[in-house]
């Protein structure tokens, strides 16, 4: 079935079936749905574009994407953060062609139109008086994002003037973001340039997987977890089966994999962190946050729609201690069947240089295009695209029906906000990402 051209809310009501806990495979493969997502979702919602530590000084810039749009993220002379459409207001040419740098402004390679760091038009091809006063140059500044804001060093932007405040959009998810990204006084910094690679799958595959998918971690990553985390597959399975998955509201979802019973007493609190950082965590996190943090083996989250993170402890030296890495990433939509993963590694600013280096190594060896985890996920995800390309196969459902068993089991008195479900096997929180997607598509 190919969809009709003008999809309306009624169509999207059918494409995700809340009652059945299934979604149409078409939303992972149909290009007309992808095009509608650009308008109904990505033009409306807050999108992650970069970290405060990437542009510490005035004039610092990085080139980024907000869904399919190229943008420049920079720090102005006044210290303010600017997010500009990276496209000349004259004929649309890509203005800034480098990945990062420091500059006083941006000059177009085509006719030489020049813009300040805040996007103001400074010069046209020649003497601006040649326009004889017939053009209002104020209308020819670069388009800026409607709103830019940050939380815990994470910079978000939106094209939507009517968007809620970022704090409200993140809402209760901030409590869970803090567990990994706001637990020392100075906060975090990026370790280097983003890893960027193309995966032949719809962007939602990544967003849903990090929402997060428990059973795949045993099937795809079980032996690797044994080899690189030193945790036996049975213990991974127990941790995932009996630890909570959280729906934080507004489509933000994640998991809190705790040390399983079989390893209690053998794994220290805050496993994978040095004492000097743990001391700061104890100071900065609340009593309730500490309660869920101490016994964590890792963590995976998706902030709706396409900003995710993963923390995990890796051991790559025989007999060495586990070292925690934290990766944050955007699932960039490229087409219905292709995304780019943009992936950064974060570390606490207060960490020693030695620890930063170790955390970097733990990150690039696990969650990166060459990482022992990502290389396998990408293969499984590309397999979805290959598997649902046909006339018969694309008519089927994406199945999240483990949710039928778990979605009514909300843990009472859970220390954190949102709805906590008792198992990472439950598929409830993964499916919640698609339910939120449906809200935007039917709006």
């Amino acid at each position, binding site marked *: 079935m190919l969809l009709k051209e003008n999809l309306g809310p009624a169509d999207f009501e059918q494409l995700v079936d809340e009652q059945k806990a299934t979604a149409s495979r078409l939303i992972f493969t149909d290009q007309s749905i992808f095009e509608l997502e650009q308008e109904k979702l990505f033009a409306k919602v807050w999108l992650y574009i970069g970290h405060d530590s990437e542009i510490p000084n005035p004039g610092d810039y990085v080139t980024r994407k907000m869904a399919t749009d190229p943008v420049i993220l920079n720090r102005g002379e006044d210290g303010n953060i600017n997010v500009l459409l990276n496209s000349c207001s004259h004929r649309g040419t890509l203005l800034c062609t480098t990945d990062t740098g420091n500059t006083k402004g941006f000059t177009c390679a085509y006719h030489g139109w020049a813009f300040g760091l805040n996007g103001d038009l400074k010069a046209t091809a020649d003497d601006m008086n040649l326009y004889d006063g017939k053009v209002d140059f104020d209308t020819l500044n670069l388009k800026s994002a409607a709103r830019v804001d940050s939380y815990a060093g994470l910079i978000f932007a939106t094209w939507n003037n009517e968007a809620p405040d970022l704090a409200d959009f993140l809402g209760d998810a901030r409590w869970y973001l803090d567990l990994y990204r706001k637990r020392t006084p100075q906060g975090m910094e990026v370790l280097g340039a983003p890893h960027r690679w193309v995966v032949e799958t719809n962007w939602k595959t990544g967003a849903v997987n990090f929402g997060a998918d428990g059973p795949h971690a045993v099937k795809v990553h079980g032996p690797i977890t044994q080899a690189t985390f030193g945790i036996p597959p049975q213990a991974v399975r127990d941790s995932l089966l009996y630890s909570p998955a959280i729906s934080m509201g507004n489509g933000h979802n994640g998991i809190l994999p705790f040390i399983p019973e079989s390893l209690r007493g053998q794994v220290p609190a805050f496993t994978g962190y040095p004492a000097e950082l743990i001391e700061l965590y104890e100071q900065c996190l609340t009593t309730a946050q500490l309660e869920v943090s101490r016994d964590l083996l890792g963590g995976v989250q998706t902030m709706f729609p396409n900003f995710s993170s993963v923390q995990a402890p890796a051991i790559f030296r025989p007999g060495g201690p586990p070292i925690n890495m934290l990766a944050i990433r955007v699932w960039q939509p490229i087409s219905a069947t292709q995304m780019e993963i943009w992936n950064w590694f974060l570390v606490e600013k207060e960490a020693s240089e030695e620890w930063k280096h170790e955390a970097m190594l733990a990150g690039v060896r696990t969650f990166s295009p060459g990482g022992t985890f990502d*290389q396998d996920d990408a293969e499984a995800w590309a397999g979805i695209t290959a598997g649902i390309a046909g006339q018969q196969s694309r008519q089927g459902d994406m199945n999240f029906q483990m949710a039928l068993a778990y979605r009514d089991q909300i843990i009472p008195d859970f220390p954190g906000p949102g709805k906590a479900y008792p198992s990472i096997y439950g598929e409830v929180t993964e499916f919640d990402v698609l339910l939120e997607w449906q809200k935007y598509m039917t709006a």
Partner: protein
Amino acid sequence: MSNRVSETEYRDLADFLCDEAELLSAQDYPNWQKMLAEDLHYLIPVPQFLEQVGSREIGIGNGYFDDDIHSMRIRLELLSSPQTTTAEHVRSMLNHVVSNIRITKAGDDEYHCKSCITVHRTRFNKKEPTIISGRRQDLIRRTTDGFRLVTRQVNLNQSILMSSNISYFF
């Protein structure tokens, strides 16, 4: 001391690089591992498009690969069995093409080897191969047991990798 190498040395080292390429294409990791030094450093930096003036580095840097012999052994072990790899099950069809080999002496028993490497890779679910090319700078040591790869830095020519993963080596 001149850093020029003899014809025999050049031939021996070029053979080493071609033997290595053949093992990498065949994913014969037990035998490739024998060619690695205990003090191995295998590094693939993240390529970026930067201004010639005004460029800057962010953070301490995080390459795609940054491995010592211990982490490399774990990688090779995982990639050697269908039970422990999804990315290479089934195995990719790989061709490693080595060219532009230039060699100078780095000391009594060590050599700087520069080469270009182009890897053609085909997966079962895509008809056409992905092709990634890079410039390699190696340090290779002569031992009584044959040559050993000590350091390798590979500068790839894609800033956004057009490949779902790098589950192989350059």
